[in-house]
């Protein structure tokens, strides 16, 4: 029999060894996990505590540290699918516009007559004027309130659309503004949820956007979905405080009715601010990224009437002094008041980039969730149940594997042993692949592995049955083996390809646990094809060259 070229054999061996290398962290799951957590914490903090150094030493840096992630159903935790009520924001925006529109039209009282807001659906602002002749002037005045949409796709469009129906002026958000608002609302919701969840410091939470208006939140290790909902529901605390002084001494005494707060951006800078805020986040209606008169990025914000009045009075009395924007007891920024800010809206300028102004606007609004969320799906899995599932899955996999191994040896003797070696390598490669791509193992995923154990020997069965047939036809051993491998190949390809096809479809369409199953099944088919075709063949040919048997029994 022709022996495979040295390079090919080396390549196959190299793949197997790499498989062992990358699968190895999973054997020391707890240690590697501690190591990874410590490494992450040290990177975030910039220094290491003795415990973290000890945890870091649990696993050598030179070794790979990728692990198979455990899904929620194995680790325990909570899963929420939330739908953000985007329409809420439209209504809020329209309510926010009404005072502006009213003030603008009041200035034109001579032309338009009396101005009254008419009842309408929440997303529409409908204003009646008593003097129809002044309609053109009124529309022009309302149109003048429009601002250009700040977004990539909505360039050149205004945020509101003004139309006329009878004696009514109808103001709606433009489509471009709605799109921009939707994505802002969702981004903001994601941001708030992330901040809230990060505060409890659990390992690897998943917070991602799904479709147009949904957010998927998966937090391992949290007690229940109700707990997670309570956590998300808590609003961030945003306040505007008077600044007493600025210091770099973290131990400075703030004095009575003042407090010392750290700055968010500037390291080592602290502000002493008055304890009682001038205005708080509940009074904030809106904040948007914008540009100031000099075309520098800035943030526009607006308070509700009572907040606006308090803010106006305060700014009038304190021109030239700084005030602090405080979020969760950290100073976001402390701009100097340039002028009396009347009307409840203002601009925060500073040395921002466009990204920073956008982020600040998000943070400013991040005080409270921008819109109500309804929860479409919620699941809680206790950690004990997850551990029970892991134990049961492991038991089943070990017993299943032993039974299959025994069955293969009973059926194919020495050749069965060789197939079993390939099966073992297959499992190692499967775990290596999953660790490398950071795949998540779920309970159905464990079932996928057990199924792979059963199905991966199928390729060997196909080959061996074929070898038997060739032997029966009187072919010499080495020729029979060669023909067996070659002729079985097309059946192996076709059958495995269709199975991979279904795995891909499951992955594309399925969600959660089904996806986990598809990943393990699909990867398992790939690795089993490799081991059955290349690894077994290499073992068998090596054995044949070494022993040179005159007859073989498969």
């Amino acid at each position: 029999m022709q022996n495979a070229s040295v390079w090919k054999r080396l390549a196959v061996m190299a793949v197997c060894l790499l498989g062992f290398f990358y699968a190895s962290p999973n054997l020391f799951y707890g240690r590697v996990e501690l190591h990874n957590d410590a490494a992450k914490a040290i990177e975030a903090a910039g220094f290491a505590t003795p415990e973290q150094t000890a945890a870091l030493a649990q696993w050598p840096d030179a070794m790979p540290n990728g692990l198979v992630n455990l899904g929620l159903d194995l680790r325990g935790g909570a899963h929420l699918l939330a739908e953000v009520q985007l329409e809420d924001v439209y209504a809020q925006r329209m309510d926010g516009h009404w005072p502006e529109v009213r003030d603008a039209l009041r200035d034109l009282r001579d032309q338009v007559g009396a101005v009254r807001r008419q009842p309408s659906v929440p997303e529409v602002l409908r204003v009646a004027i008593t003097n129809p002749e002044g309609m053109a002037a009124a529309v022009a005045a309302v149109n003048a309130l429009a601002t250009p949409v700040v977004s990539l796709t909505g360039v050149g469009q205004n945020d509101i659309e003004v139309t006329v129906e009878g004696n009514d002026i109808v103001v709606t958000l433009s489509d471009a503004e709605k799109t921009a608002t939707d994505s802002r609302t969702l981004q903001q919701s994601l941001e708030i949820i992330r901040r809230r969840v990060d505060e409890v410091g659990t390992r690897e939470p998943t917070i991602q956007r799904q479709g147009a208006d949904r957010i998927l939140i998966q937090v391992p290790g949290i007690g229940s979905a109700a707990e997670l909902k309570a956590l998300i529901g808590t609003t961030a605390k945003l306040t505007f405080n008077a600044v007493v002084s600025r210091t770099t001494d973290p131990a400075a005494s703030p004095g009575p009715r003042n407090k010392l707060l750290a700055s968010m951006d500037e390291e080592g800078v602290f502000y002493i601010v008055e304890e009682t805020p001038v205005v708080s986040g509940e009074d904030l209606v809106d904040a948007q990224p914008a540009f100031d008169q000099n075309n520098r990025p800035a943030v526009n914000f607006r308070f509700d009437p009572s907040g606006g009045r308090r803010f106006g009075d305060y700014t009038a009395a304190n021109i030239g002094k700084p005030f602090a924007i405080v979020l969760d007891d950290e100073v976001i920024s402390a701009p100097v008041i340039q002028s009396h800010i009347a009307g409840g809206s203002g601009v925060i300028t500073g040395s921002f980039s466009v990204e920073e102004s956008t982020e600040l606007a998000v943070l400013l609004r991040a005080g409270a969730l921008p819109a109500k969320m309804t929860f479409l799906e919620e699941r809680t899995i206790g950690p004990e149940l997850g551990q029970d599932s892991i134990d049961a899955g492991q038991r089943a996999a070990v017993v299943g594997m032993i039974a299959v191994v025994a069955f293969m040896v009973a059926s194919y003797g020495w050749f069965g042993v060789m197939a079993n070696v390939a099966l073992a390598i297959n499992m190692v490669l499967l775990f290596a692949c999953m660790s490398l791509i950071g795949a998540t193992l779920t309970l159905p995923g464990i079932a996928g592995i057990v199924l792979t154990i059963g199905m991966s020997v199928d390729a060997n069965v196909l080959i061996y049955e074929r070898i038997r047939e060739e032997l029966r036809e009187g072919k010499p051993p080495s020729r029979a083996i060669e023909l067996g491998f070659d002729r079985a190949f097309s059946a192996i390809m076709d059958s495995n390809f269709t199975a991979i096809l279904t795995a891909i479809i499951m992955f594309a369409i399925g969600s959660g646990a089904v996806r986990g199953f598809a990943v393990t099944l699909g990867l398992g088919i790939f690795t089993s094809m490799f081991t059955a075709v290349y690894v077994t063949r290499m073992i068998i040919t090596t054995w044949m060259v070494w022993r040179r048997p005159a007859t073989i029994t498969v």
Partner: protein
Amino acid sequence: MAWRLRLVPEKTNIDFFRLQFITFGTSVVLTLVTFILVATLGLNFGVDFRGGTTIRTESTQAVDVAVYRDALGALGLGDVSITEVFDPGFREDQHVAMIRIGAQEGSESVTPEVIERIETALKVSDPAITFPSIESVGPKVSSELIWSALLAIAAGCAGIWIYVWLRFEWQFAVGTVVALMHDVIVTVGVFSLFQLKFDLTIVAALLTILGYSVNDTVVVFDRLRENLAKYKVMPLRDLMNLTANETLSRTIMTVMTTTIALLALMVLGGDVIRGFVFAMLFGVFIGTYSTLYVAKNIVLFLGLDRSDKPKGGKVTDHEFANIDA
């Protein structure tokens, strides 16, 4: 000669078509019965597809379904079902039950207050009770999940159809896909007959059955294609029998290894995935049966054009394909 476990004799000569009216007829009847079962009994949909909440309870005290029912009856939750769960893997003092509550009206998912009321009510009757898992799915998502599940199965069938058609002949594609649908439909029928819980993981199992069954069928078709080239004058029926007999040993071996692995999972894998494993186990058997008794019959019924294909010239079979496709 070393000893070998032989499940199938070296040479078999079974006529798989001898009782084809009974075997194929049974398949047709089973398929029809499934439609009737699903129409009359329906499927025992889990919360994934129906909306609602399932709560898993665990306690050191024995489960008394009647006591649970009384405790929850006062809450006015509508449709409540309580079943005790048994598993050989449970400890002596581990008693588990599943409580399922239908979707509450006017709510996308069960509110935390409702769950809290249930937990308090149950804790009164059994202080040792804990709640290892709670899952709620709103009606809005559940209807989307049904559609995406159906779409997944349809896409799976379509993908296989196209692949088999490209690799073989159109008759093989028809035979394969009909056999696949038969497997999936009859499995659904079993779930309807025994009113087993049908949720998203069962859909994953059905898709796996697609994968397994097509694997099995394709292996036989691959050999059939080889034999078609080898024995040009043998009648198609005899050729199919020869092929099935030649591959029978492999078919049985693979069924055995897969079944062994799945049985281990069924017995030891815990109650959470038992339904899922059962669906796959049943699918493995029905998939093998359909390979032997459904897929080939369809191809035989449709007939194959066995005239020699002139190389590079007109390909007769593909003309067929074009007309019918």
